[in-house]
């Protein structure tokens, strides 16, 4: 997989993960182009499309579009299920995930993704194992955060 983008129905980018080295300018251009292309597609259309020399696999969950770019030989259907598994992970972690969860806890969304996919390949496909890893991290966070909560300021 070359990259994964999450964006809203309004075209706002919510998460971007790049597995190939690209300049910021290229990333912005690709994002703009793809968001436009995918948003222009009608609901019942197929989830795959050719784009440049890549294959785009996308699926909409509520107000969020999940969009992956894979290479010629990669498997479209299994990529569709990668998206679904990621959604399941988010859902299980946040408890009925919604777009707001991804906005306010963007760092968590990245951490979960890193446990699941690494370098563009499925690293751990067991839901239980991924969540176990994140849970452990959260336990660490809770014990660490005890002291610092008081000192939090608005700015």
């Amino acid at each position, binding site marked *: 997989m070359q990259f994964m983008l999450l964006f809203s129905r309004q075209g706002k980018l919510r*998460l*971007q993960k790049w*597995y190939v*080295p690209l300049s910021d300018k290229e990333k*912005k251009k690709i994002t703009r182009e793809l968001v436009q292309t995918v948003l222009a597609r*009608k609901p*019942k*259309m*197929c989830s*795959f499309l*050719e784009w440049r*020399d890549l294959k785009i696999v996308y699926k909409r969950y509520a107000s969020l579009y999940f969009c992956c770019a894979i290479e*010629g*030989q990669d*498997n*479209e*259907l*299994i990529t*569709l*299920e990668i998206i*679904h*598994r990621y959604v399941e992970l988010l859902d299980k*972690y*946040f*408890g009925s995930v919604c777009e707001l969860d991804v*906005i*306010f*806890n*963007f*760092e*968590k969304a990245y*951490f979960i993704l*890193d446990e699941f996919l*690494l*370098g*563009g*390949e*499925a*690293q*751990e*496909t*067991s*839901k*239980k*194992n991924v969540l176990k*890893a994140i*849970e452990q*991290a*959260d336990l*660490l*966070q809770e014990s660490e*955060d005890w*002291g*610092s*909560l008081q*000192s*939090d*300021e*608005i*700015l």
Partner: protein
Amino acid sequence: MPAVSKGDGMRGLAVFISDIRNKSKEAEIKRINKELANIRSKFKGDKALDGYSKKKYVCKLLFIFLLGHDIDFGHMEAVNLLSSNKYTEKQIGYLFISVLVNSNSELIRLINNAIKNDLSSRNPTFMCLALHCIANVGSREMAEAFASEIPRILVADTMDSVKQSAALCLLRLYKTSPDLVLMGEWTSRVVHLLNDQHMFQGVVTAAISLITCLSQKNPDEFKTCVSLAVSRLSRIVSSASTDLQDYTYYFVPAPWLSCKLLRLLQCYPPPEDGAVKGRLVECLETILNKAQEPPKSKKVQHSNAKNAILFEAISLIIHYDEPNLLVRACNQLGQFLQHRETNLRYLALESMCTLASSEFSHEAVKTHIETVINALKTERDVSVRQRAADLLYAMCDRSNAKQIVAEMLSYLETADYSIREEMVLKVAILAEKYAVDYSWYVDTILNLIRIAGDYVSEEVWYRVIQIVINRDDVQGYAAKTVFEALQAPACHENMVKVGGYILGEFGNLIAGDPRSPLVQFNLLHSKFHLCSVPTRALLLSAYIKFINLFPETKVTIQEVLRCDSQIRNSDVELQQRAVEYLKLSSIASTDVLATVLEEMPPFPERESSILAKLKKKKGPGAVSVTELDDSKREGGELNGGGERAADTAAMAASNASTPSPSADLLGIRSSAPMGAAPAAAGSLLVDVFSEAGPAAPAAAVNNDGFLFVCKNNGVLFENQLLQIGIKSEYRQNLRMYLFYGNKTSVQFASFSTTVSCPGELTPQLNVQSKPVEPLVEGGAQIQQVLNIECLSDFSDAPLLNIKFYGGALQNLTLKLPVTINKFFQPTEMTSQDFFQRWKQLSLLGLGSALLDNVDPNPENYVCAGVIQTKGQQVGCLLRLEPNAQAQMYRLTLRCSKESVSKRLCELLSQQF
């Protein structure tokens, strides 16, 4: 999972995010600038920030960056977080670094240090964070620092999660810097990860991606993975849907792992071991059988996962090209063609395209023609229609060409703009490739121009003219047809071009009533004013041709040429044509006119440039090489003749190479006669498959190496994809330059070369080579330098193995033309010395010095040289005594070592 840490992790961050949300762009920017100023002052402030605040501010910066704003500070603070021993601070630090990598070398040094510490911390969570960071950044600097460390972590006795991260981390580094990741001693232990019974599926799932990538580069080193992959696959395929517990996804056992295993197997030919092959075929059959079973769940995830495996299995079947399985696969895909899931229809169409190119399944694919035509007409999604058009193109052959071309033409009338140009190219190619009668071909192309004129590229209309010019049996028909097409009140300009050209050449063939010369002329001229300059220029040339064909039109045409809008036209090309043609027609005698304006000679046979254009448009892999070969074979038929003229300058070439309208279609004014333009002009026409390219030596290369005994430069190897040139020079060691030229327009991936010295040669030669770049762009050439040291004399040649991925995995082995005489150092000596040594030794040329005035008989050649090996110097003398009358020669060699004289003698005797 409770929503423990939501929001209350960093309250300041949450407040900031909600502040920005739903603000206008301007208000957002204002708020962000305020925040940036605040963070900057905090970072610069005298008060040292505690870890928590630092984490919060770094996280805010990251959020601002992800919103699309530029961030130019905070890297240092993020790096500081890396060395925190609080997990969450470390984690945010790593996330920031992963997203906002900075090439500041001082920072990179610090980052690498922090990573190094975490990797050696023995704390698995810290190790994973560090590995994730390397995998996310994947820069060359990181590869340099960690590529040798990670394999150790991968095979060490660590937690599974660490192993998994290490495997994929290594994969990422290998993709960016393959030269730095050397598996060497780790290879077998990495392959063994596939085997480990106790190993959880997770580790295998991660490791297999790495193994697949490495196998593509070094198939031999990893080939033991094939049998392991087969047995792993077989265990999964035959397991019940609950056996694999959490790795079962919607009742499908380990779908990701299964797909990856099937993908890995596609890097190799079918297993040679009968038992392994049998087991694999059984797996593939089971997968095909399962597709027929009723679904275990109605959820789309179940069918997607199941079908993902099925499609991957079909890819493997296509790779193996195994007749029975291919036909079964084709039948399965046939069912999907009418499935209610759009995704499945799309994939079935796509996959069938590849099946169509195998001789074993081509016929089976053809049986679905009606369904595919129906898909082209009724699918609501343009990307699916596109696949249907691709498949029709792929399944087209002589038997169904007329039907398919007709369907594609009728689809063109309503086709989406985005795919029209490609459709036009496809129709043009099919019409040419499968034309049985030329009138059908001409009708098709003219229809194409009529229906989708805007999308008909130059290549298409050049081609129809080339073909009409070369086939005299179609010329009359073509003239009649264009005449009729031009009757339409609104005509596409491309039609006017074709019409002008063809009537200018062959109008005389149809010049009876009601198509009298004047009617033809008036018809063409009625379009003149609506046309662009290049078309007008072409029409002017057609007019002067008319004057030659039909003297009765001379007065009318001269009047047209003479009017101010022509002769004083502000466009210099049009003006010049008008002036010159007017003058030519008034001063030249009919004989001269007839000679100058003679009918165009046939175009030299050349490959269709339309194919190249389609290929370029579609990108790599879209037009398979087999298709192209096919057209090469069949292309000739339509072009008739078959005689390949020595000079290759088609009208298309000269036109395409000259951007100005002065490209003279009729060749009247070109500086060189049409047929004699330099061959290089042909190569300007993106036509990569044309053999008219500048460097096209004999395709058959003598690979015994004898060709290069007395030669230092030349073409070592050439096929349709690749050309290898060679240049060698001797300076103490033999330096050999290899030039690998990609002859296609498609990139070669995973390009690698290895030089080996088999058997006896190992102690005799020392060959050093630098690795080559793994990517060779289309049309590009890369160079590799070999440094060869001769340790002792030798007779075998080292082997050059080349592997790359260009459409399919290519694997070549060639003998390198390294022969003992390449190590000659010439020696000067006098006659006296020579014969003195001659007497001492018992041995020409090829590196030794050719000596004049040495031999008393001037007919004889004598040479002397010293072969430089590391161990010893072998002096060689040679005497060649030709006997012209008897057509014989005697060659005598004397060397200070017997094996050398023997080998030199063998080499030389091949040369005469």
